[in-house]
Every structure is written in C-alpha cells, then in structure tokens.
C-alpha cells in the first residue's frame, strides 16, 4: 500500500528539511546533506528539485529569496512540526530496539 504523503519522511526528506533550519540556497543542499552525514546520505539533484517543489506546495518550506534562477528556502512551522514528529518516531524506534536487545529496562 503506498505511503501516505509525508506521513513518515524518508531519510532524504528528513535531511533536506534539516538543512533548511537556516535559510539556504536549494542547490547548496546537494553538498550539505553528504557533509552532514559523512557521505552516508546523498540526495540526487532531480530528487532534490522535486522534493523542494513538493515541500513548497505542502507549506513545509517557504521561498525567501530569488536571485535570477537561484532560490533560497527556509523551514516553516509546519515543516518543523513534521520534523519533530519524525524525530519522535525515530526515538520511539530506538527505544524499542534497546528494550528488545535488553540495553534498556522496559
């Protein structure tokens, strides 16, 4: 069954939104994500373009500056909320993992 859009974020979506905590050019995200994750996560240029379009449409980010074809974006409150939910979900998974492998008490 297809995932409901943005109900959970993929790793790429998560890190793109994270990069936009501060105002940032869209293209710079292509370098920021690998730097942030020690090259563990990369985002394709086409995927990034489409994600930014979708995040804009969903109101999760907003455009702050347009200089020719260069555009800057920043996270909105809705985007921050989505990130917080994803963070909480990941934390819950970590917690459950630790319980199962008896690293943490129940």
């Amino acid at each position, binding site marked *: 069954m*297809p995932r409901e859009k943005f109900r959970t974020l993929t790793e790429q979506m998560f890190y793109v939104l994270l990069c936009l905590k501060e105002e940032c050019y869209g293209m710079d995200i292509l370098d920021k994500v690998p730097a942030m994750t020690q090259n563990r996560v990369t985002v394709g240029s086409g995927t990034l373009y*489409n994600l930014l379009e979708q995040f804009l449409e969903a109101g999760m980010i907003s455009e702050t500056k347009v200089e020719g074809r260069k555009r800057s974006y920043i996270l909105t409150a809705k985007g921050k909320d989505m990130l917080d939910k994803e963070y909480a979900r990941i934390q819950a998974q970590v917690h459950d993992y630790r319980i199962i492998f008896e690293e943490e008490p129940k």
Partner: protein
Amino acid sequence: MKDTKKILTFFSFYDKTRIEHYLEEQAQNGWLLEKIHLFWRFRRIQPQNMHFSVSYFPKASSFDPAPSEQQLLFQDFCEHTGWKLAASNAQMQIFYNEKDTPIPIETDASLEIAQIHASAKKNFLPFCFLLVLAALINMGLFGLRLTYDALSVLTSNTYLLYGVCWFLVFLISFSEIIAYFKWHKKALQVAESNETFMETNAHTHIPVILSFFMLTGYAFLLISYGGKQMSLIALSTFVMILGVTTLIHVISEQMKRWNLSAKLNCAITIIITLVIGCGFTSVFIIGCIEQVAAVQSEKIPADTYEFRNHTFKVYHDELPLTLEDLTEITYDGYSYRIQKNDKSILAQQLSATQRPRMDALEQPSLEYKVTTVNLPFLYPFVKTVMLQNLADNYAFSEEEDTSWQQHKEMDPAPWNANEAYQLWIYGEAEMRFLLCYDRSIVELSFDDDWKLTEEQKEVIGRTF
C-alpha cells in the same frame, strides 16, 4: 570521416534503462548524443566511459518556444553534481556525467516513477490512446464495408491492406499501453517494498516488426498494381503524407522561433493537423483512389456508335464464355466487355457482359460474374455472400419480406458443378443461376426468354 551521424531509434518513451545503456555504448564507440527528434543526432567525441541518465520533467512541452525557467533551474541542479544536458525532447531530458561514480540524478524510486507517470500522461499515453481509438474506428469502418460489400473488399488489395494496417496500428499502440501499465504497476510495488527503481525493458522489437510488415504490405500493393501509372499514384500518396507531416512539424518549429506560447502553438498545430493533415490528405487520397479506379476502368473501345443522340461504346474484350459458345449467333454487333477484373491475394472477381447494340435489343444478351477464391476457408463465406447478393438485387427495400424469392437447389451434374442454384421469384423460375465449382463461384444471367439446353449447361460446365 563524418563528425555527426543520425540514427532512427525505436525506444519506448519510458524505457530509460535501455536508452541509458544504448547511449553509454555509443559514448564508448566515440559518439555523444546532441539532439533528439525523429532521428537522434550524435557528434563525434573521444571514445570514453560516460554515465547517462534519462530524467522526466512533466512541466515541459514539445511546444515550448524555449526551456522554461523551471526547466533551466532543474538543469542547474543537475549540473551542480556534474550532470550535463546532452539533449531533450518535450518531457524527456538526457544528461551525461564523466565522473566514475556520480551521484544519480534520481535517488527516490517512488518520486522518480511519479515523474515518469506524470510525463507519460502528457504526451505518450494520450497519443497511444488516440491511435487505439483511430484504429478501432477505421477497423469498424472496414468491418462495416465487409458486411455490405464483402466481395469488393476481398478482391481489393487496397482495401485489405487498409484493414491490415489499421489492425497493426491497433496492436502496436495497444501493446505499448499494456506494457507501460504493467511496468508501472510492478515498479510501484518494487519501490514501495524495497525503495529501488525497477529497470525498464520495453519490448520494442514487436512494434518494429509490425511496422516492417506494414511497409512491406505497402510495397507489395505498389507492385500488385502492375502498372507504372497506378504505382506512381500510390507512391505519390505516401510521399504526400510524409510531406504533410513534415510541413506540420516545420510550422510548429517556426512558431517556437516566434516565441509563441506552448498553449497557442499546440492549439494551432492541432487545427493545422485536422485541416491539412486529415481534411486535405483525405481529399487527396480519395482523389487518388478514384483516379486509380478511373485508370483501371479506362479502356479504349473497339468502336462507338450513335443512338438517340447518345454515344455508345463497343468493346471486343476476350471473354471466357460467349453466346457464340452456346448457340449459333448470326448477329455481329455485340459488345464483349470485361466490366471488372479485381484481384487480391484472397480472391478475384471478373464481371463480363455480352450485349447487343441499343437498336438491336431483341438479340440475346449474357452477363456473368466469376469469383475465384484463393483460400479454401473463405469459400463458404463467399458463397453465402453471393447467394445473398442474388436475392438483394431483387429486393425493393431492405425491410421488404424477401420470402417471395428463393434460391432453389438444382441438379449440379449437367453444369459439371458441385452445387447449383436457380433464382425463383413468385414461384416462377428466373434465368439467373449460381454455380459452385471447386475454387470459383459463377453468377450467370440470361434473358428471360432464353431456352437453356443440356448441351449449353455442359459447355458452361467445361468453361468454368
């Protein structure tokens, strides 16, 4: 040594995997793609290993005067990671990268499939559905003609090729649609389950083979006409269609240079296509068909005569059966004419008449049609049609009850036939017969006062 080359390719719109592999092979052989249209144009480069990536930009249109700002921004993003644009055509953008292990342009399988689908819905799928619809309409028209004039269709290579071509168009376009949706469904499942992009592998050899059959059929048709004049007419039709297609393309490209918007360009192109492409082409083709028919039927008469201010032609064609074969004839003013001699790979029909001059109508006349069936399985169908035609010729309207007329079976032995029928109207036997031989069926008409003898039946049997 040439620095550019053009190749006709047969990739399906969505078949990015095979396109990428093909372009990588071309680069290894020293050719880089630089333009896509009907032909793909390549320019010579140093042979090298390159990575290619086919991306789909749904917002692009083949009618855009220039790449939009959004499209250029997309290309800027790709260039940031080393992907350079090789060529684009409407929604399809092809990039290449000279790095050994470049970051792919698309790293989210579900998103990539969504982009491909959005692009396909813009051109590829509507075009395929339109072709299917056009094919169904034309196959329907062909089927309709087969129901009310089956023998004209079966004895005409032109009509048969028309039916076969539209059937092949239906097969090609329908199979493309099915193949696409099969891949799309499976690709979505794969992306959902393990977040990878399922490679495409469209089987384009089937459309290529079917297209080859269509062209071969057309070439066969040109040869089957047998005459230079008719072949030229048919060939000019083909060239005219190519010319009209090229003209429409040139006009559309010129509108792009004038910077007309994509919507306006699209609307004008559609109107031109309907008027020139469909309207003018149809008139031209119909004119050609009529010209072909006129050429085929045009014969130089052996003689002419005047009767009541009208000019009548006299022919001396060689007929398989004449009245002189059946009885002693003293009158020498007959016109012997082969009215029609249609042939196709399925059947042949010859229509012949022997008629006296208009000032000698008391003389006997003869009329017959000989239909020869080349494929045995068609024989029962042709026989049924000819029996039906025999009855229909004497019905005043379609709704009229035709039970007052019947085909009665008669002894075929005197005719040396397998079956024989005679037409009866209101309980009286008419001098109209249908004779069934091994491969041919003969429809024979004598004057009402003709006295048919056993010897004459034997002669007819020997003739056919």
